[in-house]
């Protein structure tokens, strides 16, 4: 199938811009890392790196899934509710029937796929904008979960789950142990699978085409409805998996703790250069977006800034980043017009 025809004529310039965006983002992150390495002793340590990866894995995994939906030209903010439902049901069943790792992830993933498909069904059949659908389903999933669960915590998780995984243990000179834990493993797998899906499969090219120009994608013979089901179900699946990773880290299930984080994930993906109009965004960019917010917050703590100010700095970063991007974009276009 000739995909070249579906790509707009300004593709090379746009590709360059995208490279620029990531290059610029990477430069900011490296500068931030340099400053933090000089200003603090604790930033550039293996321990801190592991802590950063582990504590930001949940947001990172979700970001990899949301990226796929944004590239397809949609938006979904119900994934935190999906994750809450998946987490609660999977672990309740795991405790009751003594399930192991695989069935647990299978159940969480299946619930995620089901919730994602509900979103896709409403979006494609009712033809209302995806943000309205996902706001509605966020409230439905979450409301029903709290209604049926009574908002109760689950703290007595199975022992093997509380222990998590601890592969390739390595002791540094001072004897502190490091190992590959569940959070880092799934984080890497999630980004890898998003990269494979978007960059190494025919479906990935179709997703970009759908986000770039829906009508053109449809005329090229792509099955738009099926693609929509695929991206929303994919995000649901990722949300289900991420929810177990989060529960393992928290060592408990709290149905109310995840909802409200959806806009944080959106901010990270958008910082990475994904566009809300679809068709634009890369896995590398999403990783950088998550990394920037993670390193910023980590750095502020290490520098001794009260953690109460974290959110203010995050907001400032988002506002500056989107403003600079838009302003540069605008200047480039007026330069092209002249």
């Amino acid at each position, binding site marked *: 199938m000739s995909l070249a025809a579906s790509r707009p004529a300004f593709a090379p310039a746009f590709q360059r811009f995208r490279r620029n965006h990531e290059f610029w983002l990477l430069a900011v992150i490296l500068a931030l890392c340099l400053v933090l390495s000089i200003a603090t002793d604790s930033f550039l340590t293996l321990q801190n790196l592991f802590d950063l990866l582990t504590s930001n894995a949940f947001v990172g995994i979700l970001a990899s899934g949301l990226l796929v939906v944004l590239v397809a*030209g*949609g*938006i979904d*903010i119900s994934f935190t509710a999906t994750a809450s439902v998946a987490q609660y049901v999977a672990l309740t069943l795991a405790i009751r029937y003594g399930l192991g790792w695989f069935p647990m992830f299978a159940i969480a993933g299946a619930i995620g796929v089901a919730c994602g498909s509900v979103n896709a069904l*409403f*979006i*494609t*059949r*009712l*033809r*209302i*904008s*995806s*943000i*309205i*659908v996902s*706001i*509605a*389903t*966020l*409230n*439905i*999933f*979450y*409301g*029903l979960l*709290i*209604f049926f669960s009574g*908002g109760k915590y689950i703290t007595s998780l199975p022992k093997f789950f509380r222990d998590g995984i601890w592969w390739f243990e390595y002791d540094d000179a001072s004897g502190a142990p490091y190992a590959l834990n569940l959070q880092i493993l799934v984080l890497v797998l999630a980004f890898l699978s998003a990269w494979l899906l978007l960059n190494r499969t025919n479906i990935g090219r179709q997703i970009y085409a759908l986000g770039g120009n*829906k009508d053109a994608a449809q005329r090229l013979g792509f099955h738009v409805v099926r693609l*929509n089901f695929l991206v929303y179900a994919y995000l649901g699946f990722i949300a289900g998996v991420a929810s177990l990773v989060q529960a393992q880290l928290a060592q408990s299930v709290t149905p109310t703790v995840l909802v*409200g984080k959806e*806009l944080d994930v*959106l*901010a990270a993906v*958008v910082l990475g250069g994904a*566009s*809300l*109009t*679809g068709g634009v965004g890369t896995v590398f960019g999403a990783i950088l977006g998550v990394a920037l917010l993670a390193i910023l917050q980590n750095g502020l703590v290490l520098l001794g800034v*009260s953690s*109460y*100010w*974290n*959110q*203010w*700095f*995050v*907001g*400032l970063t*988002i*506002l500056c980043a*989107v*403003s600079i*991007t*838009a*302003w540069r*974009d*605008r200047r480039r*276009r007026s330069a092209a017009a002249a």
Partner: protein
Amino acid sequence: MSIDARAPWWGLSAPRFRGGAAQILSLVLVSLIVIFWLLLGDRLFSVRALQSMAFQLPELGILSLAMMVTLLSGGLNLSIIAMANLCALAMAWVLTSHAAGSEGLMWVAWQVIAVLAGVAVGTIVGLINGFVIAYLGVSPILATLGTMTMCKGLAIGITHGNVLSGFPDPIVFLGNGTLLGVPVPLLLFLALSVPVAVLLNKSPFGHRVYMIGSNERATRFSGVDTKRVLMGVYLLSSLLAVVAALVMMARFNSANAAYGESYLLVTILAAVLGGVDPFGGFGKVGGLLMALIVLQVISSAFNLLNFSPFLTVAIWGALIIGVTALTVLFERLGWRRR
């Protein structure tokens, strides 16, 4: 691209969900009233129940108005709640630190100054939103996501998440008093709705807002200074949020960085349920009022039936999907509105 980023900035565009949902909504309202009347008898419409509804509706109502004006222009404003809390804290700070210790004329003056402080904060945030969206061309969802995080961050940074409480009687009266049996918040809400409706439907500014929501580029080419109009839209949205802040803090007799956060997405639902097109250009204040009444009747009836408030939220979500489904169904049956 800034122009396209403003019109269909979320997902799959489709036949628009136009302002004619009023018929379906009135059908829904009548059937709800019949069902709840059968279940609850006269309890739903006792004076006490009606009065408590009238106390609860304005909070969501004023915030929904603030959301609605931006939706009409084809944007949206995620920062309304965070900004309202910041304004409430500014007012609360003046009230608790100055008004509490003064007497007579100064006591009155400090209360006026407190309200002005809230207006000042709202104006600043509104101008930032407007500038970033209109002049830098950032998509509204991203710009207001940034200001939302900054406002909340600032509020948390300053208060450390603490509550400021204890206001003078006139302020508390605004949230809890009644005039001739009618709750003051409801009067305030109506006193705002009427001028906003007139402004939107009878003034040149209003016409331009609708025009920008329908087609911003065409509006600009027809000689309208769209940037100034958009500045006005976000400023108006901010000022409405300031009034919401005043009502909320008066009602709780306290202010905090995190009050009412769950309202954010519900305001979008209320507006869309009331027939506001999420892509801009269509929608009336009357439709919004009707949607708010429907939501409030459900919430009050569920409360009387001792259902969980989370079930209410789930039903609200289901309602918008149901109403949209009915609209699509009627269109398919050939029953065209407009």
